[in-house]
């Protein structure tokens, strides 16, 4: 079977999305999708086309046990009832589940969740894509007043958007650290609030924003990457 054939891939994607494909063929097509971006794109287009068909399906309220089961499976039963944030959860309920979940993210270089570090230490992080390597590398100056960001050639070119960098301070809202370069190296000067946010953050993130950056001061677009911050003493 010639899978490079776009038309054939499109027909397979249609059968996959509609659900008429037999189980074994379905699994086979899913494997193709993991390596074939044309197949993935075709599936997305069919999902979008067909989505309206379920719009009128009658909504059903789940029983309370369903959410309780989800909380239990993800290991955060009780966490969402507390005033504490996700970071408290991460620190107090570090578990195999959480570890597995985080592994699914773009992980940076190391984890220092349990011990807030002084800001003076140099901080480094890398945003990377599974099996593709680093996209951006971020390090702070020893004084902690600037970030030096290097874009690798894996940054996806996008003239219509900005890539915005955020500190994710524990227990607080994301704080913008500036716009990331799409190529080359850029230096981002940090003000006091940004330094404090970064000092209290164990993670940083990249979101996709309109040109000029987030208009609201909070991430408005999808989060593309999350990386752990490693502090070097």
């Amino acid at each position, binding site marked *: 079977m010639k899978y490079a054939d776009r038309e054939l891939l499109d027909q397979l994607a249609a059968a996959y999305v509609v659900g008429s494909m037999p189980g074994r063929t379905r699994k086979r097509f899913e494997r193709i999708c993991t390596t074939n971006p044309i197949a993935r794109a075709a599936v997305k287009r069919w999902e979008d086309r067909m989505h309206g*068909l*379920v719009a009128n399906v009658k909504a059903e309220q789940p029983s309370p046990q369903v959410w309780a089961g989800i909380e239990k499976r993800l290991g955060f039963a009780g966490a969402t009832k507390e005033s504490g944030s996700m970071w408290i959860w991460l620190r107090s309920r570090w578990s195999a589940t959480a570890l597995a979940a985080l592994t699914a993210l773009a992980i940076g270089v190391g984890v220092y969740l349990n011990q807030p570090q002084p800001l003076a230490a140099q901080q480094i992080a890398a945003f990377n894509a599974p099996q593709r390597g680093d996209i951006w590398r971020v390090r702070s100056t020893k004084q902690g007043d600037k970030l030096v960001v290097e874009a690798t050639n894996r940054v996806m070119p996008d003239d219509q958007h900005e890539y915005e960098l955020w500190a994710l301070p524990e227990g607080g809202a994301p704080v913008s650290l500036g716009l990331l370069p799409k190529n080359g190296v850029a230096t981002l000067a940090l003000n006091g609030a940004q330094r404090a946010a970064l000092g209290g953050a164990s993670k940083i993130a990249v979101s996709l924003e309109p040109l000029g950056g987030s208009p609201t001061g909070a991430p*408005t677009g999808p989060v593309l990457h999350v990386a752990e911050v490693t502090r070097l003493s």
Partner: protein
Amino acid sequence: MNASLQMKTDTGEDGQIEALLGRCALRDSKALSELYRLTSPQLLGVLLKLLRRRALAEEALQDVMVRVWQRASQFEAYRGRGMAWLVSVARNRAIDLLRSQRTHLSLEDSPAHEIADDSGHDNLEMSATDKMRSALDRCLGGLSTEQRQCITLAYVNGFSHDEISRLVGSPLGTVKSWVRRGLTSLKRCMES
């Protein structure tokens, strides 16, 4: 949650759903809780339609939310289409369960007339609010009744070709042809 995203789509929530997915990628468990509150009734409705049995559908809903939490960082999967992505995760889970576990079909759980009444073309007209849905609505209307019914039985109700063949009382080859040609026409129409 992020109040700056207010793009309205078919659920009226899509911008908010995307923002919540973004927060899930940041491992914010409250965001998952909020996402669940907003979307679980619709997702359970979809799952129930496919899986028929409430206990199985609720179990699948748990699988779906766990999967969403684990995959929320795959932004490309839902950029601009939060609810469509969630529905696809739910449908894929349900279809996997159907294809792997169903040994025999209980057609009596879903009488043909009920399916036809419940998911037919007329209902779609009531809430066609966005461009894609309007196009789908219009283009479904251009299909033959058989094509439209077979596609709906597969997509909404999760029936395989073989099951649809038994349900509508037409030969398997005919059903396959209706689905394939219907989808080809649908695509052509929606791209025009």
